[in-house]
């Protein structure tokens, strides 16, 4: 098995693991972490596509690499915004539970992404 395939399978496992954490973790900060694990798994899939596209003059296809770099930046921005929302929520209500505030309203746990 080549290094690229191995990294790809690792990426698939990371994505599954992150997805699991995103669903089962009650703590929103843990969900943010799980979301980042999920994201990095997907980035690795891009990485192996880049590596498999290597040609003379480039050790890896630059297009997926550039997409991943953009992705890392955007994921960081989203994480920072989610963390700021969470800290603000806890400062306001002294709790990090999303459900109590949302009962009776539309259920939306999408603050994590």
């Amino acid at each position, binding site marked *: 098995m080549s290094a690229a395939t191995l990294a790809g*399978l690792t990426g698939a496992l990371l994505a599954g693991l992150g997805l699991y954490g995103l669903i089962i973790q*009650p703590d929103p900060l843990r969900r943010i972490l799980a979301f980042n*694990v999920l994201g990095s798994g997907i980035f690795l899939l891009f990485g192996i596509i880049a590596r498999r*596209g290597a040609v003379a003059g480039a050790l*890896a296809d630059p297009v997926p690499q*550039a*997409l991943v770099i953009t992705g890392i930046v955007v994921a960081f*921005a989203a994480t920072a*915004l989610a963390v700021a929302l969470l800290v*603000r929520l806890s400062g306001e209500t002294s709790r990090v539970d999303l459900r109590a505030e949302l009962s009776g309203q539309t259920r939306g746990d999408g603050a994590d992404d």
Partner: protein
Amino acid sequence: MIVQTLDIGLAALVLTLAGWTVLAQATFPAVVSYVAYGLLLSLIWVRLFAVDVALTEAAIGGGVTGVLLIGASSKLRKAALSATEQELTPPLRWAIATLCVLATLALATVVLSLPDPSPTLAPEAVQNIAATGLGNPVTAVLIAYRAFDTMLEKCVLVLAVVGVWSLASDQYWGGAPGAPGAVTWDGALAFFAQLLPPLGILIGIRIFWIGADEPGGAFQGGAILAAMWMIIMMARLAEAPAIGERWMRIALAAGPIVFLGVGILGFVAGWGFLAYPAGFAKPLIIFVEIFMTLSIAATLPMLVAGPPIQAPRP
């Protein structure tokens, strides 16, 4: 043979740390696991010969995100944890686990059935690179071939800062994020924060500069500059600036605005929106990248610092 041991070991370690990040009982171990996980990811990116990505992951995954998350875990520790949260029943838990295993299997099937030889844009990227005057195809993709993505990414960063700031209470609008005062000029941390930035700024500028031809570039260099500003603020050698400061606003918006300005200039001058004129591409690209680097160096610390919590000075 040994290379395979290394790759399998890296994969096993990265999965272990991801498992701890997701499943650890307490939050702090999960956060520390995630920091170590970021370091391992950049090793894996080096193994995939994606050094530009490894550099980005090293700057963001290990350093800046670590500071953000460790700070968050400490701030949230004081908040009452959601005790009312109902536990998931075991059958539901199993159902979720099965779903995630299926998702993993689907992705793994995709990985194993990728076409061979793989479709690639690398030849085109390498062939046309002379027109940009650059030597690093990844930078060429970011700043020339797919400039639109990069421009929007910079806009996303500015929007994220606006989003974070919009969480401020009304009385703090225009004030500074972070705790006030407590300037201590002695101690190990202050010494470190005085010694590191000169070297770090040099390395950051170098990584930005060589990005034209070798792994590196505006984002990676900017992230390192951002980290140097963060260490100065963490050591309390300088306070976080008020978000109402004009220079702050200009620094944040300069990157996307200059990028967009050059793009529109191309539209007006007839060589195309977000395109560069033949023969003059590289100087223009460097010009855009300088402002992007500065913007990133200003944006990342502001994202980590969070919304303002001090009233603005009159």
